[in-house]
């Protein structure tokens, strides 16, 4: 499965992206994962980062490059990305769990403490996730950012949630 063929990035495609943090950086604490794989004219992520950790430069079709040492995992870039391609992963959250911050423009919004399904890049349920935080300030402009806790092995796979009815 590839992005062009069915809409989901394969692991190989992901590994090749300049917006992917290294294993080492992931092990150190919260950091962004930029799943932006095509040269489209777009750079709000660069402008959004307060630490200069994302660089697009000229031309603006360049893929965003992550300067992982500068990234604090603040997550401001998540809602700023029109493609909803940016996530923040914290592998150091606990012994068993990692956290994933993701954009979620749907109703109803989950509440802190809810148990939801963790979905992968193809919408398959792969784990149960616990909602830790729901951020929806005005500056996110109706792109709420949800933080969930998931089993560590799922952190690089969970990219969406489904509310349980």
């Amino acid at each position: 499965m590839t992005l062009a063929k069915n809409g989901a990035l394969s692991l190989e495609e992901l590994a090749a992206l300049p917006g992917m943090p290294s294993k080492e950086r992931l092990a150190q604490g919260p950091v962004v994962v930029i799943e932006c794989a095509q040269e489209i004219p777009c750079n709000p992520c660069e402008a959004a980062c307060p630490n200069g950790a994302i660089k697009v430069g000229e031309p603006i079709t360049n893929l965003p490059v992550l300067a992982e040492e500068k990234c604090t995992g603040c997550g401001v870039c998540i809602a700023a990305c029109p493609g909803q391609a940016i996530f923040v992963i914290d592998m150091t959250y606990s012994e068993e769990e990692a956290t994933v911050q993701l954009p979620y423009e749907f109703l109803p919004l989950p509440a802190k403490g809810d148990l939801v399904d963790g979905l992968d890049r193809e919408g398959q349920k792969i784990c149960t996730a616990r909602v830790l935080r729901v951020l929806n300030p005005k500056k996110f402009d109706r792109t709420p950012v949800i933080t969930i806790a998931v089993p560590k092995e799922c952190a690089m796979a969970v990219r969406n949630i489904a509310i349980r009815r």
Partner: protein
Amino acid sequence: MRETEFAIVGAGPAGLSAAIEAARAGVQVTLIDENDKPGGQLFKQIHKFFGSKEHYAGVRGIDIGVQLLHEVETCGVEVMLNAVVWGIFADHTLGIIHDHKNLHLKAKKILLATGASENALAFPGWTLPGVMGAGAIQTLVNIHRVLPGRRVLMVGSGNVGLIVSYQLLQAGAEVVAVLEAMPKIGGYGVHASKLRRHGVPILTSTTIKEARGKGKVEEAITIGLDEHWREIPGTEKAYQVDVICLALGLTPLSELAWMAGCQFDYIPQLGGHIPVHDANMETTVNGIYVAGDVSGIEEASTAMEEGKLAGIAVAEALGYLSAAEAACKKEVVLRRLDELRSGPFGGVRKQAKEQLHQQRCSQ
């Protein structure tokens, strides 16, 4: 006969941008739109735009619309709404149906910013109620807030098909699949990924074969295609749906440009027959300009820049900007257009546009 300096047909992103640019320079502008609200397709675009800050990146289309309307109001543009331009006639005269009256407006310069219409695909059952254009769905759901069905099959995976599918999910519908006849997804990967994460299958090398139902769509039959776009017997699949949405690309809505006698060139990368125009957006008919989708199918962000170019060019032609002032303003816009037209998606359009400009210059 009424008169104005600059008549703009269509108050979408291109028309609004041109109006603002020209009016700020001092031009008397009349902006005409057939809808009861200006903004064109912007008010259906509830997603955040790409681009850079100068292109309103990260801002939702609806909010860009509000912003442009505000600017138009503050810079003294005359806006005629519910006004259908029914024809373009000799001496830059427009026939306009407005307020149940037929009036004639003569303008020194005219900008046609009439946008595009959706392409169709004829298959058995495509006339059944429930088969609709993607733009139709977007209008109904995002503007009128009515869902025409619960289960939708999307035909076409260009950006429109992908975005509308996502917006259908946001409005509470189920999208059973997105079909794409080509072996590759047509639109941006990020749009496709947003859908995939919600479990929507995107089926490449697959097309719609038939719509079935009694009185309205109840079932859609799809079929796989080989590398020569031939149907592969035995690959038919049935989906129970109540809406089949067609997102098969756009064609410039160029009737007025044809009527005005503009020369056209066939450029498939830009959506078909395109009025030949120069870097000022002026067509082969003196004083008639085009901008936005009518001058080649692109995006709202490029449409806004093209509108600005036309606005500047008209202000210059009417003597409101000196050549130097205009050149300076155009340079900024052209640089931004260049940015939008780079990369694997935009580069093709850049080449096509350059081909058109050269043609205009060689005449």
